[in-house]
């Protein structure tokens, strides 16, 4: 039987393995050495590798991104961690103007191998400034790679590939994935950057789902199976590069497409997926594609509104049912309990 780890443990293990294998890998970020260790992902690393390889930093996201980039130019392989994407907005200049373009704008003379781990917050009143999921921005920028694993196994394999990659990699972790469990092989292994994972095979409809929505899509597929609908669930895993082939092959077969995203619909990455399919498969679809994404407002803090803000498996399943069978889905009432926590172990607020 395969060993199971939680997603946060998989991140931890990947980091630890890469640090052991390559002395140029180091970890830096607010709180990476503190007692919480970024939701456990960096816990104990300082004790193991020393304070020169795992370190806290000043609250200066922009400048410190420049520092991290500079250290990469000097031959290090930094892993920078921000506890929220929202904080990294301070660092867009360094990430997008400098790091993403360094290799290109100097004619390929120097690469900038660095990983920036960005966490997406959710629940317990994270509110408008602690919950954004801006992967679409990064996906738009040539020179970056953008990775958002949804399973523990991929979290580990993709983080290893990201650390070993010679380019700036944006590695996005949804907070509600940190505590999910799944099989994780031991030792070093790599998941390729630019290859989607088919989470479930099916022939009636293709659901492309990003990050935490992959989980919701998987749940939706189970519900749909009970209704006689055989859904294929694809987690693109990286959205720059995007594995178009896997998606097109699937939609070519099922003729139906739902894209589920953790961010806003308008101008979001789900639109890119729909556009690709429209461009390549145009008339072959059996029905119109759909996007399931956030409504067009900042994240409201009140838990009473969170339930209306975040789409769930039920939304995906209903849409799929309409698309495949042309009927409304009757769902059992959602399980009791609060909609602002990922699982019962979560006791708020972060």
């Amino acid at each position, binding site marked *: 039987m395969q060993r199971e780890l939680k997603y946060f443990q998989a991140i931890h293990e990947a980091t630890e393995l890469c640090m052991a294998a390559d002395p140029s890998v180091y970890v830096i970020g*607010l*709180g990476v*050495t*503190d*007692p*919480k260790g970024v939701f456990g992902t960096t816990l104990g690393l300082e004790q193991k590798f020393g304070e020169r390889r795992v*370190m*806290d*930093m*000043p*609250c*200066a*996201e*922009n*400048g410190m991104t420049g520092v991290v980039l500079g250290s990469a130019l000097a031959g290090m392989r930094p892993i920078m961690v921000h506890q929220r994407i*929202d*904080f990294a907005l*301070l660092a867009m200049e360094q990430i997008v103007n400098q790091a993403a373009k360094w290799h290109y704008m100097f004619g390929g003379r120097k690469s900038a191998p660095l990983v920036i781990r960005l966490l997406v917050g959710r629940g*317990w*009143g*994270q*509110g*408008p*400034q*602690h919950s954004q999921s801006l992967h679409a921005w990064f996906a738009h920028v040539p020179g970056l790679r953008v990775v958002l694993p949804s399973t523990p196994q991929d979290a580990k394999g993709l983080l290893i590939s990201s650390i070993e990659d010679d380019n700036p990699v944006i590695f996005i972790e949804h907070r509600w994935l940190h505590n999910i469990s799944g099989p994780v092989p031991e030792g070093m292994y790599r998941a390729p950057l630019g290859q989607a994972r088919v989470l479930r095979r099916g022939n009636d409809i293709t659901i492309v789902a990003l990050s935490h929505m992959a989980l919701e899509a998987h749940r939706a597929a189970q519900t749909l199976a009970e209704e006689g609908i055989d859904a294929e669930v694809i987690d693109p895993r990286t959205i720059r590069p995007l594995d178009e082939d896997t998606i097109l092959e699937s939609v070519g077969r099922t003729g139906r497409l739902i894209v589920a995203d953790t961010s806003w619909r308008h101008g979001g990455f789900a639109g890119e997926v729909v556009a690709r399919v429209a461009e390549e498969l145009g008339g072959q679809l059996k029905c119109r594609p759909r996007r399931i994404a956030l*409504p*067009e*407002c*900042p994240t*409201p*803090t*009140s*838990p*009473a*509104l969170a339930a*209306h*803000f975040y789409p769930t498996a039920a939304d995906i399943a209903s849409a799929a049912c309409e698309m495949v069978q042309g009927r409304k889905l009757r769902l059992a009432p959602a399980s009791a309990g*609060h909609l*602002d926590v990922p699982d019962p172990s979560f*006791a*708020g*607020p*972060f």
Partner: protein
Amino acid sequence: MLRIRLIEEGIAAHYAEQQMRCPVHLCIGQEAVAAGVCDLLGRDDQALSTHRAHGHYLAKGGDLPAMLAEMHGKATGCASGMGGSMHLIDLAAGFLGAAPIVGSTIPIAVGVAFGAMLRGERRVVVAFFGEGATEEGAFHEALDFAALKKLPVLFVCENNLYSVYSPLSVRQSPARRVYRLAEARGIVSRRGDGNDAAEVHSLAGEALGVIRSGGGPALLEFDTYRWREHCGPNYDNNIGYRGEDEFLRWRALCPVERLRVRALADGAFDAEDEQRWTAEIQAEFAAALRFAKESDFPAPETMLASVYAERQSDEPTARHCKPRAA
């Protein structure tokens, strides 16, 4: 000050009920700064703050029931439930807003003062922030602009030694002092004991004197200490980032207790006053908490209602409607 303390303790006592479903950053141990500074502000003066805003909001005269309702995610909250504890606002009290991105409200506060200056309004704007925020570029850019335009801004830095669990030693060089950074721009700056309400009061008085007489901005750096965990109601001296002994040293310097002892000695109030006040505040808190709990949650349709501001008038552009040329 006692009021802030008791209200924060009240929040801490009720937080475990999981009805306040948002992060809370209590200011217990740091009350003297908010109280000492705001005591000298007028209604027209304004303030902005950070994630740790309860004390500033209350000292500036912010509405208590609306604050507790906000923390409960209710429609009656000071931000209609959209913001939670980290986004307090009370325009009537001159508390213009708090937001939790470290450092970011400092330039906004400077801008509020700048806007007031452009409009010919006379008021002081106070920016409250922690020493962690002085590590952000935004702080430096804000200082520079306030100095350039000689704006009536009082920068108040509460140096509580920590940013979350990170001690100063991993973030700032030992030689660095916040107040000297302001001095290097020619900004009047002082450092003081943030646990001594009288000292806060007197330094703030001096600084406000400079500002009000057109001397430009001033900065005050106050040494102080947060008693409870960074975020949440508990003590966390056991988890490893700081020691119980350090905490006890600081607790012995309790700002509320020091003021109390002095006031009792001075005869400014007596034990009976104190008991009465405590009872009054506790009753006020209980009533506010009841209000918060009994209030309704925002209706689902409000979720999309306030993304954009709509012009009030029917004629959307009436105000500007006089074309210059025919």
